[in-house]
């Protein structure tokens, strides 16, 4: 397995589960932005293309003690990817400043090994060619190419928006990076808010905060560092994801990982050794 790559800029999310009402606007915004084809019957959830899915979480208590929470799940953009390491044709890798796991559709052979590897179910396969209702293809965005059948795809943190934000800087003759406050660090010159994913942008509740996890000036940094309510999904697998979740409810945080009965939430007794 390749060594973990560290980048100056690490785009990431902090998703506040105490704010998410599960309305689904983020899912629709994602589909429209990334040119996912609609389907009339979407009830077979294991066959529906969705880069972002809102899961329903329950505290599993009976009425009236029942509580519910909603958890939007984009690609977690792992620093230790279960997926990219197994791809036989280098169709997906995390090899660029920003730490986004790429997905190169023309390279993908559709073996689906990455899907078998991803514990977050963030990867989706094109079981058929995408079909839009007649005329609706006119509303496709120009930024994300349409994928044919037979390739795997996933959330890219709206990578095209990242490129556009960088292009904008270049067009203004500005540098892409600026020096960080700490010695030896650099940050993206993209101002916070100039590069935001479609889901984060659409959410009326502001539940999804997007930014650079390495930049102390960014809200996402402040929310995820030194915050006892922040957790990541399946942290003990060692995937080192770039998507943090926040909840003041312990049962929600405990659902973020597998725990043995006597383990303390967010502090399992045994911690996975770094190398696998």
């Amino acid at each position: 397995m390749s060594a973990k790559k560290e980048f100056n800029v690490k785009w990431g999310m902090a998703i506040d589960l105490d704010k998410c009402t599960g309305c689904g606007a983020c899912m629709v915004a994602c589909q429209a932005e990334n040119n996912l084809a609609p389907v009339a019957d979407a009830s077979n959830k294991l066959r529906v293309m969705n880069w972002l899915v809102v899961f329903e979480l329950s505290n599993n208590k009976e009425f009236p003690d029942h509580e519910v929470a909603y958890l939007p799940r984009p690609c977690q953009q792992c620093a230790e990817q279960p997926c990219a390491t197994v791809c036989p044709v280098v169709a997906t890798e995390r090899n660029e400043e920003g730490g986004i796991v790429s997905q190169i559709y023309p390279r993908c052979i559709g073996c689906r090994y990455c899907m078998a590897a991803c514990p977050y179910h963030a990867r989706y396969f094109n079981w058929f060619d995408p079909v839009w209702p007649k005329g609706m293809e006119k509303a496709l965005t120009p930024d994300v190419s349409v994928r044919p059948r037979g390739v795997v795809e996933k959330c890219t943190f709206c990578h095209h928006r990242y490129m556009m934000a960088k292009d904008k800087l270049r067009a203004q003759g500005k540098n892409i990076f600026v020096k960080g406050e700490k010695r030896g660090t650099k940050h993206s010159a993209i101002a916070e808010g100039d590069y935001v994913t479609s889901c984060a942008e659409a959410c009326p509740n502001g539940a999804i905060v997007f930014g650079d996890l390495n930049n102390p000036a960014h809200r996402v940094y402040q929310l995820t560092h030194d915050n006892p309510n922040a957790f990541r999904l399946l942290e003990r697998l060692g995937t080192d994801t770039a998507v943090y979740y926040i909840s003041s409810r312990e049962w929600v945080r405990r659902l973020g990982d597998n725990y043995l009965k006597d383990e303390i939430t967010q502090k399992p007794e045994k911690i996975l050794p770094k190398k696998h």
Partner: protein
Amino acid sequence: MVLDRRGFMKFVAGAGLGVMATPIPWKLLDDAAIWTQNWSWIPRNVKGETSYTYAVSKMCPSCVPMKVRMVGGRPVRVLPVDGHPLGGGVSSIAVAEVQMMFSPGRVKRPLYRAADGAFRELSWAEAVTLLQQKLQAAGSSTAFISGDENGSTNDVLSAFARALGAGDIFLMPSEAQCAARAAELMGIPAQLGYDLENSDYVLAIGANLLESWGPVIRNRRIFRDGRPVAGKKELPARLNIAYAGAVQNNTAAVARPWLPVYPGTEGILALGIANMLIAKGCSFDSPDFSEFKLLAAKYNPEVTAKETGVDLKKLEAVVKALMAAKAPLVIVGSEFSQGSGAAPVMAGFALNALLGNINKSGGVCLLPRAEAGIDGASARDEIFKNDLTAWIADRKTPQALVLHEANPAYALPGPQAVAAFLKAVPFKVSFSTYMDETAALCDLVLPIGMGLERIDDVNTPYGCGKTVYCISAVAADPRADVHNTANVILHVAKEMGKDLGFEYYEDLLKTKAVRYEKCDFAVLAAGQAAVSEARVEFSGFTARADVLAKALSPKTRGNKLGLAPYAKLNLGTAKTGIPPYNTKTLRGTELDGKDMYVMMNAKTARKKGLSDGDMVVLDSGKQQIRARLRVFEGVMMDTVAVCLGYGHTALDEFSQNKGANVMELMVAVPEPQTGLNVWSGTGVTVSKA
């Protein structure tokens, strides 16, 4: 030279080897990556210059402002507009509104019903002539139903109705109507508004504040700003929301606490809380305060708990928080945004009066009523006085019926009876974007542009805390042969010799725009909202204990389960059906193929001998619907929760054949004293299918 067999073979072999030595085959092979990506049947992206236009959604009940991204003149995305009083994100309907321009369910050109019962196309000129003839013939026996309560098209319709001498003009039932009726009964000459922006504690009773009540996106923006992300480094929440309702819906998911109550008991809960507040020394100025106090006293904590099923401990905590809050606000509404009548809103107003927040910052505010822009037209509140369900129940069939963006054959209680009523009307015309259930029953269907494709306006949606006026300009070229309803009516009126004073709808909107300070039409059309903080002075009110006493009397549920309908925006509206991009947002626990799920908690299910996944029949006595049962613990005891928005029979494949329409189960009954019909307290039996 003769080419013999051997020579030929050598040539072929040599040529083969030679070609292999060139880059041609290798290049072609390597290009497999490209051509296997670009099959001719896969749609291509079309590049173009990006530009933006602004509009306000006429499709989403939240009236959300939209920034529309255009690429080479084609609209491709709806993005949020920050800094707009109704904005702050995008709703699940509006966010794919561009894509909905291409929904298969659209009416593409005018259609009339031929003698054989099928629709035939006709030209707009023919359609307008036909419309004119029919309306001329019907004269004062023409009725109007509008499904857009915030637009000025209603001015045109009502002015036209007045000119025809017709009085039957209706808006589709809504919370705004209940509130308007409540204000009128209490003697308040204003539109009730809610200053959520400045409140620090909101108790929403039935009002699905974060999903379907009022201008939702604005509500949610306030929630966003008032509730910083939980964590060490952020400030404590500035806004707390408590929610009382029968279903743990989108609002309840983030509310602290959720107070489960029986469906249809919102008003009684409000009286129970009023009693607790009065006991703590709260009061208000009203000629009938003592009667109100007596009435409230009937709902002592024990009675309240019995009638509403509320947990007293939790309720007491909420009341305590209300009293402790700097700017408490109580909002009473309906979990499915309709049919709960005026009394709960009145009880809610009384609660706010007890908390002393009328016309105070963060409280209930009295906004000037929206006025009509045409002489002789009725103001919105005037139209609200007419109750559509009651009128249909009376069966005074008009000669002609004009519908504007209204789908009563789907959205009213008892859709089958409504359809039967519609069938009895000799001529009905529907101005509609989509071929919905009502349009499918009409004699003439006239395509109108979607919000993005037409000019229209939004005038202070119910729920706002201030007067907000927006113009929604044409953001995109229409994808069908459309005309504006108002323009057609203005034209027909003129042809009939009843000039309404405007040639075009746009002219009317221009006269409306100039009423607002510092905002001319061009500024508004460019996406800015006109906002006015003006309020109607609060000079007291009558609590109308007499009305409340009758209208809020406890109902016996008997053996039946309470029906708790609830609304979710991702299922679209009665007008749109389920938007194509939204089918994926429906969970596996909400819809499975053709079967929708209804929900009850495990204890209730056990009582009824039902288990998770059972096919069940819900029976209201008059009508039945079938569904699958989902055992979900976020539902009140003895209650079955059913989501609105399923069971479309018209529109397109994204809406059809999905579940059943819960409106089938509902029966509208008169609310004593208020002149409205209610259908929020329906009871049903649930049994295994």
